[in-house]
Every structure is written in structure tokens, then in C-alpha cells.
């Protein structure tokens, strides 16, 4: 069930909270406490806007165990406006054809459920952008 993992990641899952480097101003996601760009300490929280563009995408027809209920679904690499990239599912796509470069925004959705007695795992997904940038 990984309850402690989901609890530990709640800031990232629900609010896309990463870090900003006080030395080089690099925006960091996922948070890691050491800046990947300058190698110095970087543990100052930073909330991302949730806006970005599709860098690449694919459809999963043969899901790993635990994700069967959602298949088929689209997984993407989303290039956030602030710099870093994030792996996430696309949602609310409807009839729209997904394309590289498509503007998207973060929303909170159910990532998976864990049977009748398990927990529901929520987190970020990205949908075609509705709001003006």
C-alpha cells in the first residue's frame, strides 16, 4: 500500500512543490536538496505554476500491475515553464490529438486505487491548457 510513501510525497503530488537553488536560481523538480546545475545546497521550497508543454508522449496498452483499471492511458514528459521536466499522465484530452509542444496544465486526479480495502492515490496529471497562459 506504500502509505508512508504517498504521505511523504503529498506536497509534490498535490501542489507540485519542488525547490529553488539560492545560489544559481535554478528551479528543481523533483526536489533533491542538491542543485543538479551548480552542485550546491538547494532546499528552499518552490511551488511550480503547473504550466508546461508536452516534450514527448506515448500510450500504455500493457500496464504494470496496479494500473490495469486505467489502461489505455497516455504518459508524457512535460517540460514545465520554469525549466525542469516531469513524468506524468495526460488527462481530459477528449478528441484532441496529442502533439509534441502542446500546452498543458497540472490538475489533481486519481493515479490509482488499491482494491476495495486499499487507499486511493491522488496526484498530478496534465490536461490541455484551458486558462490563458
Amino acid at each position, binding site marked *: 500500500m506504500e502509505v508512508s510513501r504517498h504521505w511523504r510525497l503529498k506536497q509534490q503530488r498535490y501542489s507540485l512543490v519542488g525547490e529553488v537553488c539560492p545560489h544559481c536560481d535554478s528551479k528543481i523538480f*523533483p526536489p533533491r536538496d542538491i542543485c543538479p546545475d551548480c552542485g550546491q545546497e538547494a532546499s528552499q521550497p518552490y511551488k511550480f505554476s503547473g504550466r508546461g508543454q508536452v516534450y*514527448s508522449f*506515448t*500510450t500504455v496498452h*500493457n*500496464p504494470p*500491475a496496479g494500473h490495469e483499471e486505467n489502461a489505455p492511458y497516455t504518459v508524457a514528459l512535460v517540460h514545465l515553464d520554469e525549466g525542469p521536466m516531469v*513524468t506524468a499522465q495526460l488527462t481530459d484530452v477528449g478528441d484532441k490529438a496529442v502533439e509534441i509542444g502542446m500546452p498543458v496544465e497540472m490538475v489533481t486526479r486519481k493515479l490509482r486505487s488499491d482494491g476495495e480495502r486499499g487507499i486511493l492515490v491522488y496526484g498530478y496529471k496534465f490536461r490541455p491548457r484551458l486558462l490563458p497562459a
Partner: protein
Amino acid sequence: MERVAVLGVGMVPVDEHWDRSMVDLAGEAALAAMTDAGMERVDALIVGNMTAAVGESGQLNLAAQIADWCGWRGLEAYKVEAACASGAAAFRAGIVTVASGQVDSVLVVGVEKMSQTESTLTTAALATAADADYEVPHGPSFVALNALIMRRYQHEYGWQHEDFAPFSVNAHANAARNPFARLRHTISVKEYSRARIVSDPINILDASPTGDGAAAIVLTRSGKVNGHANRPTVVVAASAVATDTIGIHSRREPLRLFAAERSAHTAYLQAGLRPDEMDFFELHDAFSIMAALSLEAAGMAEVGQGPRLAQEGAIRPDGSIPIATFGGLKARGHPVGATGVYQLVEVTRQLWGEAGDNQLSKARVGMAQSIGGTGATVVTHILRIKAKPASPSLRHSHA
């Protein structure tokens, strides 16, 4: 480094071995390598394996179990893990151990048992090579992660899907002549193009099949007598590991295999050789896109131009840089943690001149490269035939 030599090799065919356990397979390959080396006992056993602990097999202490199966109770034995590069990492551990002088001989065994696990669980086990906090919860299969790279690569460099066909066609053609291969049938470009999509743009003929397999190699310090009078001595010219971010999303250039570039570069420096001096290259073609990126990372193709080498025929057995000479991951099969050892067994057989129907006409220096995950851990080895000291009489005859 050239103090370490390969003394014997052994393997079982990659297949679904329903009647054989993981330890049976490992033991069979181990004893075959020992017989080949003409030895009854080694000083240490190092095992490469990826999924034994995460799959339904649920087995740790694997190396101790294999040592016991082989009748070597008491032997130094342990396991090395680096996802799909586990076998190659175990081989490196074996080299370093022998080179340290602490032991005289090491048996390296790569083993994987995948057919006893239900397919969604196998898919989940393979996904453990990715980031458990930031990739896995979002549901990408391992195929999907590679598909993300392939789609963007096609977008950036303008390649069509069909341009990757020669990688799979070549692998299958070579596997058809290899009795140890999982898929011993040829395929055509048309079959490749029409194959079922797994995770777009990757189709079933871009992807390597998993399977049960085990391969083993005996390493010792050079100079020991080997039982095969006609075999040239094969030595380790280079062994290098490098790492990159585990998640693709954290890479500055997601279309480049930085760890592969770095480990290949280090290997060339150790061996004192250039990329164009490799006679062949057993690369990690888990997916056709990875074959292209590996050729680029190893300095054999320009960045973004990997498919061109395939189209020009350079990767075929008669080309300038043959790859997947026994079928590669694509068609020999990819029993993940065992694959790195299969590659090194194949390089050795080419160098010995014992590759049978897969023998290359020129095989004096060969490179093998294993990629763990989508590029997080990359292990590169260069093996070569040991140069004989120039004999005075020979020099005289040329004078």
C-alpha cells in the same frame, strides 16, 4: 587490466524453461563454463541478477544458493545488481576482484527467470529500473519510457519509424543461426512495419523479448594454462561503469545516453583504442531506439544519425561495425540480469573463433555495452586477443 583473461564460457538457450528453476539454469551455465575452462573449483562466485527479489520468485541470497547447487558450499559468493546491466556489472566486479590479487579465479554468472511471473507483474518488475517516487506511480511501463525517447528522437531528427527496421532485421537474421537464441526466425521490413504497436511508436518488433536464461564466464589472471591449444588468449582490455540520472525527466539532453558516452570514452582510454578500431560491438538493443543511441554514444555515429549506420548496412556481419552478431537483445532474447553476461560470452566466442555460423571474418577486438534502466547505469567492456610477443625468428623470416 590485461592481466585478467577469460578462461571458459557457458550458457543455456534463452527460452521459457518451465521445467527449470532459476538456480537450475544458473548452475547449468556455471558448470558448462567450468567444464569449458577445464576447472573444478574457483575462488569466488559473483552473480548478476535483476528481478529475483522483486518478482514472484522472491529469492534473495541467490549467489549462496547457486554455490550450494554447484557443490561449492563455503565458497565466497554474492550478487551484484544494476537493473538490466546487472550481468555486465557482475562481470566488472569479477574483473576487479581477480585484478586485486585477492583471488586467482572468479566465476561470473548472470541469471534471470521471468516466465514464472504473470505478465503485469513482470512489467511492474521491469519498471523498478525507473524512479519509484517520480516515474513508477504515473504508470509508465519500461516500454513506454523508451517510447517517450523514441518519439522525441524521431521528432528532433526527422526519422520515420521504418528507418529503424534494419536494426531488427539484422538481429533476427543473426539469431536465426544461433542455437541459443530465443527468436530464431528472420523478419522482413514489411513485417517490421506492420507489427502490433506496444507503446507508440514502439511496436513488438522494436522490442526485445524477455525470457529465462543464464550465462557464465570464468575469469582468471592471464598466464594460466588453458586446455584449448588452439584458442587465442582473450584478455580484458577495458572495463568501465558510468551513471546518469535515473529519471529521463532529469536529463539535460534526454536523447543522449550520457553514461554510455562516458563509460565508452573511459573504456577507449583504458584500452588505448579508438571507436573505429572495434571489430564489432555487442550493444544493448533492448529497443531499436537504444541501438541507435548506443552507436551514437560510443562514437560510431554522429548524434542523431544512429539509424543511418543501420541503413547503410554497417551493422551487418559483413559491415564496418557489426552489432548483435548472435541476435542481440532483440532476437537472442533479453533475460534482463543475465543479458550482460550473454553479450560477453558472445564477444569471447567471436574472439576465440568459435562462433560457428555467426563467426565474423575479423574479430580481434570486441566491445560489449549494457544499459541499466533507460540509461542510468551503463557498463562497457572491451575484450581483445592478447598480443603475442614478437618472435625473433618470425621477424627474421620477414627480413
